[in-house]
Structures are given as C-alpha cells and as structure tokens.
C-alpha cells in the first residue's frame, strides 16, 4: 500500500481522473469543493468530500490553510494537486511537507527553479539547452519592454512569468500596440496567478508546439515517454493533442528527448514533468518552459505507451523506484485527444455557461473519455470551461482520426454549447490531416471563416435532418393532440435501417 488516503486539491475532470487512479491502487480519495461545485462529479465520485466554503478560487482551491485543515481532519497522507490551481506553487509544496504530508509531485526546490519561466531560462542557458531569444528577467516598465522589443524585432510575445494556458499572454506586432498589451497581460497574470510579472520573447513564425513527457523517481532514475504534439491551439490554449507528432523523425526525437532529460536533471526533478518546446519548420527546437506537474493532455502518452502516469506519480511520491527503464518503454500506435470546452465558436469563443441537461459519452473500441461533468452539473463562470476530454487510440494516425470523428459525432451534450463542431472541422482540415500544421492553424484557416462560414461545408442530408427535427417538434407543439404525427406505435424494429 502506497498511501491509505490522498487528498485531491483540484476539481473537474482531473480530480475524477486522480480518484480513479487512487481507487485502482486501493487508495482512498478525499475531494474538496467550492460552493458552486457542491454537486459536481468529482465530489460525488470521491470516497469523502469536504466543503471549502467559498466561491472564488482564492477562497477555495487556492486556500492552503483550508486544504491542509481538511487533509488533517480526513486523515489523508498525501496531496495530489492536479494541474492549474496550486500545482506549480513551491510554497504549497513546502506547506504540505511541513504539515507532515507527502506532495504527489516534484520538490519545492525543482518547482521554484522551473516554475518561474525566467528562472528556468537561466538554468537552460547554463545547461546549453537552446531557447527562444527573450528577456531572462521579468520586465517591469513598458518602456523597457518597448526597448527590448525593438532590439530583437517585432512581432514579440508578452508572457506571464508564473503563467500557462494562454492567460497573461499577448502578441504585439508593433510599438503602438505595446502599452495596451503590456498592461492587459499584467492584469490577466495578476488575476490568474496572483503575480503580475511578465517577460518578453521573440515570436517564431509558424512553429509547432512539441513537448516531452518525463518521469523521474527519488533515486535519480529518469525516463522519457516520447513526445506529444499540441500545436492545435486557439488563444494559446491547446485543443487537440496527439502522440507521436506526425512530423517527428528518429534523429529529432533523440535530440529533443535528450534535451528534456537534461532539463529535468538540471533541476533534480522527480515525479512526472513535461518539457515544452517550439519547433520551427526546419526542426530546430527551442526550450519554452517546463511544466512541473501532470499535463491536461497526459492521456495520449498513456495510450501510446501503456503507462498510467497518475499511478506512477503516486508510486514515485510514495518513494518507489521506477519499475521500468528506458528500453522497456515502447511507442505503439497513435493517440489523439480533443478537449471539449463549453464555448460559442461564432461568438469569439466566449464561454457558454448553464446547467448540463443531458450527457451521453461516446464509446467504442479505442475510445476513452476523461469527464468532469454529468447531467445536472452546472458550468459556471468561476472556473475553466473545459468539460471533458475525448481520447482515442488507433494503430496509426489515420485510424485514430477516423475513430475520433465517430466518437465526437456520437457525443451528446445539452444545456451548454460546446466546441464539438470546431473539433470536427479541424479533423477534416487538410493542414491537420497532412500533419504539417503549426500553432497558427486556427488563426490562419479557421478564424477567417468566423462567424458562420466554417459551417457551410455541412452536407445537405444533415441540414435536412436538422430542419425536419425542429419543424416536427414545432408542429407537434401546435397540434399536441397529434402525438408527434406518429400515429403508429413504434417498436424497436422500426428503428432498423431498411436496405
């Protein structure tokens, strides 16, 4: 037994994912929840649940004294932070350990070294890891930002030092745009991460986002679990991820995985971590940042390697040695993940809030769903609007894509609008299918078709089905004695397609 019980300091799909892993290992799970989450799936799913009494993230999932108090009351022996929230806060790790608990993640020291993106850049520089030209220190004044930008040349990116997920990130094309973007980035960084520090980076044209999953134990053993490609992004938020990258070759893979392992060793890393890289069209790669936590897209790596990363995290935290070495890890097949967000694609991707009235998951061979919601769940404006992740496995990329199309088409979700249609559009997009897409895919090919035009390729058959459906329902509500104009009792057999 690794632990008797663990506390999960998170919510949504990742909390559910961690509870599942704990359950498989025979470990009890303790969930926590804010007021708006009191009937959320992770709360019902856990063995025990405790209220954090509050609404804002600062009062609840970021409230360290409350979390530690619950850990103590519940008798949890370890804390899993998930991703986001407190997962990359060194002082949280210190507080957990000072309370006599085990943190399921890296050491506070590693997080401190890597968690500040500017600090990470300095370490990479010392270790000869290539990185994108930019400031290695946070930029305090807008004048400083403008001066540096004119030195390295526009366009540039302003990024939050403590950040991730596109929050606090702004692209600037010329000096006129600098002031507004600079302060907007600082405000977003402050509200999302509690730290307004930002830095500046040269913007690389049409890069791919490639990342390497690593695992390290507390005895200095390291392995990588290949790369993921996460270039399909909107507003710097990943929406489709796959492993392996469709353009990866053996030589480049060898180089990037070596770089990743060096980066991990440079900060004495243990547990699961990810080294994010930008790769240009000539397959030159640059260190972006290290994520000292589990990634949202970890399932694609699990499917192509057969390794359960969350269970490994728990075992490593419990002081186990890695039970496999690099030569034991084999890449097999192809996996793709689509993130399902509650949002309105034609309305600037604004989040769509409301109550989930119906939820029916896709199933079938090679289909996995990591979900954070169920029918009756409320999608509120307080937290990230990601509802679930659909992950598929296929023997090759083509079969994985075909599987994903069918899985998404059979996903039923009502009460909020989602990005399902956009994901299907992407899965039929030539650049995506060729594998030669960059992080600008949506900006270059999707956004010019917003609003509405991107939907025009929909076939007549489905349009007629949609038309018939709403007309029949309206007609029925007018002539309610007419009983859906059915007039016949339907049997199961009536639903068979006739040849």
């Amino acid at each position, binding site marked *: 037994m690794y632990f008797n019980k663990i506390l999960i300091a998170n919510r949504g799909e990742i909390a559910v994912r961690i509870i599942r892993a704990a359950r498989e290992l025979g470990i009890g799970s303790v969930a926590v929840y804010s007021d708006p989450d009191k009937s959320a799936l992770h709360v019902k799913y856990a063995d025990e649940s405790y209220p954090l009494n509050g609404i804002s993230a600062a009062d609840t999932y970021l409230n360290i004294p409350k979390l530690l108090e619950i850990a103590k009351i519940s008798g949890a022996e370890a804390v899993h932070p998930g991703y986001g929230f407190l997962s990359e806060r060194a002082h949280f790790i210190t507080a957990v350990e000072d309370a006599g608990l085990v943190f399921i993640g890296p050491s506070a020291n590693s997080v401190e070294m890597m968690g500040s993106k500017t600090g990470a850049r300095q370490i990479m520089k010392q270790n000869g890891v290539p990185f994108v030209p930019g400031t290695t220190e946070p930029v305090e004044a807008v004048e400083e930002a403008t001066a540096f930008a004119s030195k390295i040349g526009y366009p540039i990116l302003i990024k939050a030092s403590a950040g991730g997920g*596109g*929050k606090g990130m702004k692209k600037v094309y010329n000096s006129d745009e600098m002031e507004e973007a600079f302060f*907007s980035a600082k*405000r*977003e960084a402050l*509200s999302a991460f509690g730290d307004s520090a930002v830095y500046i980076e040269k913007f690389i044209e049409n890069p791919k986002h490639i990342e390497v999953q690593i695992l390290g134990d507390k005895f200095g053993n390291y392995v990588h679990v290949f790369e993921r490609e996460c270039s399909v992004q909107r*507003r710097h938020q990943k929406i489709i991820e796959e492993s392996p990258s469709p353009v990866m070759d053996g030589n480049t893979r060898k180089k990037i995985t070596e770089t990743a392992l060096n980066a991990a060793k440079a900060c004495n890393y243990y547990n699961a971590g990810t080294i994010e890289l930008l790769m240009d069209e000539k397959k030159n790669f640059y260190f972006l940042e290290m994520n000292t936590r589990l990634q949202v897209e970890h399932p694609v790596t699990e499917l192509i390697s057969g390794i359960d990363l969350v269970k490994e995290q728990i075992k490593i935290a419990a002081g186990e040695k890695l039970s496999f070495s690099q030569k034991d890890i084999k890449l097999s097949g192809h996996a793709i993940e689509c993130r399902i967000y509650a949002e309105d694609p034609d*309305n*600037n991707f*604004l*989040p769509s*809030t*409301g109550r989930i*009235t*119906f939820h*029916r998951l896709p199933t079938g061979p090679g289909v996995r769903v990591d979900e954070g919601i169920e029918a009756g769940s409320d999608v509120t*404006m*307080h*937290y*990230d*609007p990601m509802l679930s992740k659909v992950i598929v496995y296929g023997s090759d990329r083509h079969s994985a894509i075909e599987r994903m*199309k069918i899985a998404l*088409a*059979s996903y*039923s*979700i*009502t*009460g*909020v*609008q989602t990005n*399902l*249609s956009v*994901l*299907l559009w992407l899965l039929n997009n030539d650049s995506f299918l060729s594998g030669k897409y960059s992080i600008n895919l949506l900006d270059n090919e999707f956004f010019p078709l917003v609003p509405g035009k991107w*939907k025009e390729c929909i076939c007549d*058959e*489905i*349009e*007629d*089905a*949609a*038309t*018939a*459906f*709403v*007309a029949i*329902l*309206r*007609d029925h*509500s*007018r002539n309610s004695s007419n009983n*859906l*104009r059915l*007039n*016949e009792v*339907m049997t199961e057999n*009536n*639903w068979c*397609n*006739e040849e």
Partner: protein
Amino acid sequence: MPDYFVDLNKKEKSVRFTAPGEIEIDGRSYHYRIEEINENYYLLRLNNRVYKVNKVLGDKSNSLILIEGKYFETEVRTNLEQKARQVLSNVKQKSHHSLIKSPMPGMVLKIKKNAGDEVAQGESIMILEAMKMENDIKSPFSGIIKDIYVDEGSAVEKGAKLFLIG
C-alpha cells in the same frame, strides 16, 4: 404554400407536412419517424437514415440543436409569423437603433468608448472578464454610441444591456 419556415444557421428552408409521416424540405420529400428518448435527446429517422438529435438549448421557436457533432442555430416560423417578420423588418430598417447585449456573465473591466463616439463594425468596444480571461467585446454594427448602460467594474449577467448604437 409551406407550413413552416426554418432558419438553419441563418439559411432559410421551407417545410411542408404533406401527409402523416411525410415531410417536404425545399421540395425534397422524406418519410419520417421521431421518438423522444428524453426532452433533450431524440431519434429521428428520415427515409432510411437514423439521426440522434440533441436539443441543446432553446424553446419552441428558437433552439440550438446538435446532430452528429454539428450545431445548428434554428428558428421556426409559421406562415403567419413569416409574414409578421417581413412587416417588422421593414419597420426595423427605418429605426437605426441597435442594442448590444452581454454574451455572457462577467465583469466589465474596461470600456473603450464614450457615448457619442463613432464605432465601426468589428471594432473592440469593451473588455469583459470571465473565467479569468479578458474577452474583447466587438461591435456587431457600425454607428454612433447613443448610450452606455454599464460602468467599469460592474458585474453583468448574460443578456444585460451594454451599449445602444444608432
């Protein structure tokens, strides 16, 4: 004469119910069957093909539906409603006021324009913060800002009046 007019992602279709279980859409005829599994989930058979249809949001006349991963914003009008709409749209063209409503609940972070300012279609007019992201609200119309109903720092619900543009 069609029985109904249906807007499908703003594209108009005409519908006739020709006989029980028979429907004609823009002149194309189908046999249909429909079964309500629950109020959000239906099975629809058109000729020999079965569709699983989700009613995502909405009421009798306006709804958002999901079929095979594709969303359709729909509006259904009876013959009479179609005529009424034509009359109304003529009236609407004479008055030039258009209201911009909040697309989501959030907090008004910044108002970029003052009453009396001219705005172009697609121009950013305010920043609304929700789910920790700053969302640019763009004007769907060109015109002069006649009125601003919110202040910086105020919380707004979905559908709250933001600007009147004339």
